[in-house]
Each structure stands twice: as C-alpha cells, then as structure tokens.
C-alpha cells in the first residue's frame, strides 16, 4: 500500500515537474510570439503591394519629416487614390466602406514606445535614416509587423556609433 503510493508520488513528480517547466517555457514563448506578431488590423493593408507600385513610405506617413509622429493617413488620403485605383478589390472596398460611413479606420498600433520615452521621427528622418533601419523591411511585409524590439539598449547601440555620441548618450535626449 505504502509502496504503491510512493510509486505514484514519484511518477507524479517525474512527469509533473518537467510538464510544469514546459508549461512555463511554452507560456513565455507564446507571450513573446504574441507581442512580436503583427496585430490584427481592421482592414487589410498590404504594404508590400503598395511599395512594389513605387509608393514611398512618406507618401502616406507624410508627417515623419515634420513632426515627432509619422502619422497614419486619413481615410480621405486613402480614397484620394483608391477611388480610381483598384476599386473592384474587396480589400479596397472595405476601406471605401469606412469612407462612405465617414468613419475613421481603427488601425491597431504596431510599434509603441513607453510614455516616458520621447522619440521624434522628424529628427531621425532628417538625419538621413531610412525607415527600414528601425521598422524592418516593410516593403516585403503584407501587414506591418513589429520586427525590432525597441528597447533602450537598441536605441543606445545606434546612438553610441554616432559622431556626437557624447550628447546622444545623455538621459534627457530621450527621457525629457
């Protein structure tokens, strides 16, 4: 009786402990996969198709040169082209539906920095950096994905290589 209970307990330990560890590891990978995954967007936005036709990033995200935020194009801007281009595509019809309802498209944010970080697209784009450097090769993506883990080490890696690294290392550059 005692022996069988001991055996059961040993079996439970041998199977249970690795299972539990596996569950934790799996959960970790699941969460990081979820964070890295492209968010579900309300309307399909095929970045690859647009860039293949020669549309530059700044055509839609036109505030990146002038403002801290790159900006998301207004529905009016989408329709500026798409009332004549590819109007029969079901994807474009979805966008057109928003326009006809005069509703904003509730896009899901792909990259987000914490509130305590100040980042300006204007400064970086005007310093001659390409969009891909941070955002990955969006020209190959259908839906935009967060390819870079935008943490402090990653920012500093680049800031350290700049000629004025001394200034760019300063805390208040990003934490204003």
């Amino acid at each position: 009786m005692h022996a069988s209970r001991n055996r059961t307990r040993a079996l439970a330990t041998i199977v249970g402990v690795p299972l539990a560890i596996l569950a934790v590891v799996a959960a970790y990978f699941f969460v990081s996969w979820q964070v890295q995954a492209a968010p579900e967007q309300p309307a399909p936005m095929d970045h690859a198709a647009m860039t293949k036709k020669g549309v530059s990033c700044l055509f839609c995200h036109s505030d990146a040169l002038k403002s801290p935020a790159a900006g998301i194009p207004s529905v009016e801007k989408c329709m500026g082209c798409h009332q004549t281009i590819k109007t029969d595509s079901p994807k474009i019809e979805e966008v057109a539906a928003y326009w006809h309802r005069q509703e904003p498209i509730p896009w899901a944010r792909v990259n987000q920095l914490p509130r305590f970080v100040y980042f300006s697209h204007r400064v970086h784009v005007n310093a001659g950096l390409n969009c891909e450097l941070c955002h990955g090769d969006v020209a190959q993506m259908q839906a935009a994905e967060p390819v870079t883990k935008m943490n402090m080490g990653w920012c500093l890696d680049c800031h350290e290589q700049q000629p004025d690294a001394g200034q760019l290392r300063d805390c208040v550059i990003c934490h204003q």
Partner: protein
Amino acid sequence: MAKISRRDFIKMGAAGLLATVLTGCQNPRRWVTLEPYVIPPEEQLAGVATWYASTCRQCPAGCGIIVRVMNGRALKIEGNPKHPLNKGKLCARGQAGLQVLYNPDRLPGPVQQTERGSGRFQPISWEEGLNTLYDRLRQAGSGTAIWTGSTTSGHLLDLFERFAAATGAPSPLVFDLYSELNGLAALENADRAFFGQNRLPTYNLEQADVILSFGADFLGPWLSQVRYGMAFGAFRSQSLGKRGYLVQLEPRMSITGAKADWWLPISPGTEALVAQALARIIADGPLGPAEWATKANTLASEIDVSSVAAASGIPVTELEQLAHIFAAATRPLAIPGNALAAQDGQGTAIAAVQALNAIAGADGLALSPDSPATSLLKPQVSPFGDVQALIERMQAGDVQVLLIHGANPVYDLPESARVVDALAHVPFVVSFGPIADETGVQADLVLPDRTYLESWGYDVTSPGFDLPAVGSQQPVVTPVFDAHSTADVLLTVTRGIPTAAAALPWSDEVAFLKEIIPQLGPGAAGGLDTDVLWSRFLQHGGWWPATAPPPAPHTPVLSQSVQAEAPQFQGDEQEYPYFLHLYMSDLLSDGRGADQPWLQGSPDPMTTVAWQTWVEIHPQTAQKLGVKDGDVVHITSPAGEIEAPVYIYPAIRPNTIAVPVGQGHTDYGRYARKRGSNPMDLVGTTSEGLAWATTRVKITPTGKKIAQAGFENKAGVDEGFINEAFPG
C-alpha cells in the same frame, strides 16, 4: 463547514491562478487603436499640438486662456500670457474647464418633456426644436421674457436685447447666484455715489501699503480671483523690500483672512458700523495728515465708538489701533466686501467703507475702464428688484415664453423667492443649458447651447484693470455633442418673425461678430482691414490698446456724512441664536462648478473637505451643542432648513456658523446630483434682495454621523482658540 486541507488549498490556488491567466488571455483587443482623421484639418501635424486663444467662462471675470489641442481634442487650458487681466495665470476653476466640454452628462441634442419636473426628456430633431420655438415666440410677441446669467457672452446678450426691443418684450434680466453672492449689482450701484458712474471699481492692491478688507474675499472667488491674487503678490513684495499690511474683518476666516496680518472676527453685519467708527476716531484724533482729519470730520457720522465696539465684538482699543494703522499709512485702502451688498441699505453700507477711501484720498482705487467701443455690450447685472418684478410678472401670467440662458434660477434662488411656482404660470419655458440642470428639468424644451470651448463670443473684461480689454471667444474644438449655438438659434427663428427679422439681419453669429468687433479698431495687435482685425482678435485672445488710456477722473462724490445702520437680521434672536454666514465655495463657486469632478475632488483650501457640504462651528459652540466633527446637524432658519455635517472650525465667531454654497443640486449631472445641501434654502427675501448675509438660524443635532472627506488631522487645533481668541 468542511475543513479545507492543505492539499485542497493548493489545488484551489492553482485553479484560481489558471482562471486568472485564462481571463487575461481573452482580452479582445491588446493593441492600442490609432484612429486617423476621416478628413484631416488643414495644416494638422500628427503629434504636434495647436494652441487656440479664447476666454474663460467659468466666472464673469473673463481671464484670457490658451487651449492646447491635439488631433482635434482639447487637452489642457492655460492662462493667456498676453491678456492684460490675468497675464498667463489661471485659477483651478479655469483649469477644470475641460470637464465642462467633455462632461458625460451633457445633453446629446435638443430634448423636450411633456411633464415638467419629471426629467423624462424625449430627444427631438433640431428642426423640430427650432420650429417649436419659432411658433411659441411668434405667438408670444411681447410676452417673451429672457433670463440670462453673468457669463452669457456679450454678443448673445446683445442679440437678446435687440430681439426684446424689436418684439416689445422687456430687456433681458442678468442675474445668477454668482452675481448675487459677489454683490455685483449693489457694488456697481453704490459706486455711483462714490465715483458718479455705474461701473465696478478696481482696487489696485499693489499701490496700497495698508488694506482694510471688510469681508472681501479677494483671494477667493470674489470678483477676479486671478488678478487679485497677482496684485496681492505685488502688495506683499513692493519696491525697497516694503511689505503691505492686510487687515481682514470678517466673522469667519476665509482664504484671504488666513493670509492677513491681522484677522478680526467681526460680528456679522457690523462692517459698516466699524468703518464709521474708524472715520470717527480719525476725525476726533485727529489722526494722519491734516487734510485727512478735515475730510474725516465731514464724512464721519456721529457714532458712538464704544457702542460699535459692543456691537461688533471688537474692543475700543483695537478699533483705535486699527484707525491708527490706517491713518499712519501713506496709501491705505478700504475694500467693501460682498456681505455689505447683501443687506438692506446696501448703498449706505458700502459708502461707509468707501468714505474711508475718500478720507485717504482714494489712492489705489480706480474705476473699471469703460467699454472700449460703443458697439460692444458689457452685461450689467440686474438689481434684485428686477428679478422680483419678473417673478411677479410670471405669476400674474404676463409671460408666455421664458428663455433661460446661462442662469439656473431654480437652484440659484431660495424657495422663498418662489421661482418654481412662478415657472408653473409660464406656458412655455425654454432652457439653453448644455446639461439639464434644475431649471432645465422645469423646462418644456431644452435646446442645448455649446459650451464655451466650442463657442464664439466676446467678453468686455469687468472689472477691468490697467487696460480696457475685450476677450475673444472662439471654438477650440468641433462641437463634441449635437449642440447648437443659442445665438444662431435665435437668429434662425427670428427670420420668420416679421417684427424681429429686420432688427436681427445677420445670417449667423459670426457674421454679427465680424461686423461689431472690427469697430474696435487696431489695438495692441494692430491690423487695418476688417478681416485682419478680426483674425488678430481671435489669434491674440482679444483686443486691448497698446498703452493704457489716461485714467478717468474720479473725484469722490461723497460730500456728507454716511449714516449706515446695523442691518436687521431675519429670525428672532431667542429662537434662532446663531448668525448664518454663507460663502461661495472657492472651487464650485456658486454651484456651477459642481458638475466637474476635478473641482468636486479638490479639497477646500480652509477645511480640506471635498465632495460635501459642511457647517463650520466654533469649538466652544460645538461643545455646548454636544457635537463633534462629522455629526449631522439640522439647521433651521425662518425661511427653510437643511442638514449638514459639522466641521469644527476655530476661526469663526462662536455665535456664527458658516456654510459653503455650491452643493445640494437635485439635477445637473451625475457629479452634482444628490450631494450635500444647498444653504440658499435657508435664505429669505427682503425688500432689497436676498437675506443671505442677514439670517439667523438654530441648530439641532440629528444623532446621525457621516465620514468627512478631508485631508487633515485636527488633533490639538482647537485648544488655543478657545482660550485666547474668545475668552469665556
């Protein structure tokens, strides 16, 4: 109950953890939504704020504001650094203005109700609302009455005036609780005796070296809190390290009293007597320069100083000391407070204090600059007699349609004024309130106006300091709800009323404003043609000249002695042993701020209590009544009764209790409703106004107790005061 084993406990714990984790996974939207514009405004940059200049309308002072707008949303209000009144400063109420705009209880569109007072509103279309109003106004003709408040924009009041004149209706009434508790009408009228003109005086604190404030809470909500706050700073730090000396005479310590060098707890209603006694002492001394004594001899009444000492509770020695301080100053200033304006014989009472300024040569006193252009209207608050006259006309059935904008008479006036009863005699009541307040609930039709951050308008700064100024008001965001500007509503419906159409020919309010504003001419901002003048007016937050015009001559008109008497209090001294001291809440002001949770949640500067009404009682009195902090008492006056929890307050006369005004709303949105009590219910009417400063009350403990939302610990606060300030 079955015993839970350790094993069961761990199992339950694990199940709980799993449930928590699984619930977390079901979050339907992990991603932040980025909503772009459907059609972006011109020159809008993502992530870059736009600042718009406008004018604050949380009180009639009219501070200039600038509003930070990001992606079409107003995010922050600051003071306009260019505006000559507030020079970039702003008070808590001004900051809270965003919650007027985004208040969730704003009416989403026009509504009507079939049963008044039910609060069961049926949404209607604007077309239907306008048509109903049009039909009613057309039928009413001269039977229309208009009730506006002290913060109604100048252009709307102007349009109402023109409409009333064209249809033969009486001129609009300008009256709300704010104007009443500030004593605006009385102060303006009384100053005719002193300046010969009906305009609010401005007290240049920064030019004075001694100030005797007779209950004027100028660092609180009196007249222009922001401006007086700045002036007080200058008064305290004058050139060569001089520091002004402030004496505050009031029965209950206000925020101004707390800042004073000498706080004198004077018996309620004896301010004018004390002022006369001081003049008498200066004349008899004689104290101060020779010409002061000569003037004092003319102006001082034959008053017995010792009897004033007995009535006011200030010993003769202290009165003499006060007179010496006043007479030894180079530029002393006496300020008549609002309590003087709330008693019968208010004009004489205010003149008694102004007499002290006349004796001292009225240095540091100026008259508000006159309206800078005849085309612009500066609202003149109606005396209470006009309010009573309108209420009588309503009761007599002479009013067919009542339009109410910017005032909340059902809340503002006590039951003794019989407003609700009078409204019942008016066949059709229209409210323009953005939120259904107490008056809106008594209306047949509510056509919500836009709030001030969505509206056009102007405000002639009054009281004005230094420069005559007109604040501009422009929409900083597109309307949040389907509200329409009342001025546009009026212009639309009058198109169909033949008598009024010719008097109001403008297509909309902007056309009207663009016609009258450029008549101001180029001010400090310059500009030559009409369009430039108009856009500069909006861009800079208003119009004011580059340099101050020469001050209007104001030889004091007072030439004979002032004979003010102690006011009659309502309520027999035996039955109602305590004086009632009502004061405007620093945050909620007259109650219009009660719908804004930021203001509700800000602690009162003197008591730290928030979200409540309380009654301040001296520790001695509390001991006598056997009540402690938080004990609910019943306060009864000859006119009405309320309940409020006790707040033991050492800085008040033992025979006086004080209650802040502002709470006790029965409607006006979720944050205001059913919170505290409205002490105006205790107030009766007199022949000259509301007896809010001349009422006696009695107190009965109810045995109930409620927790007070306050910040402080009061251990040991009371002892010294019981023994020293009020011996016995």
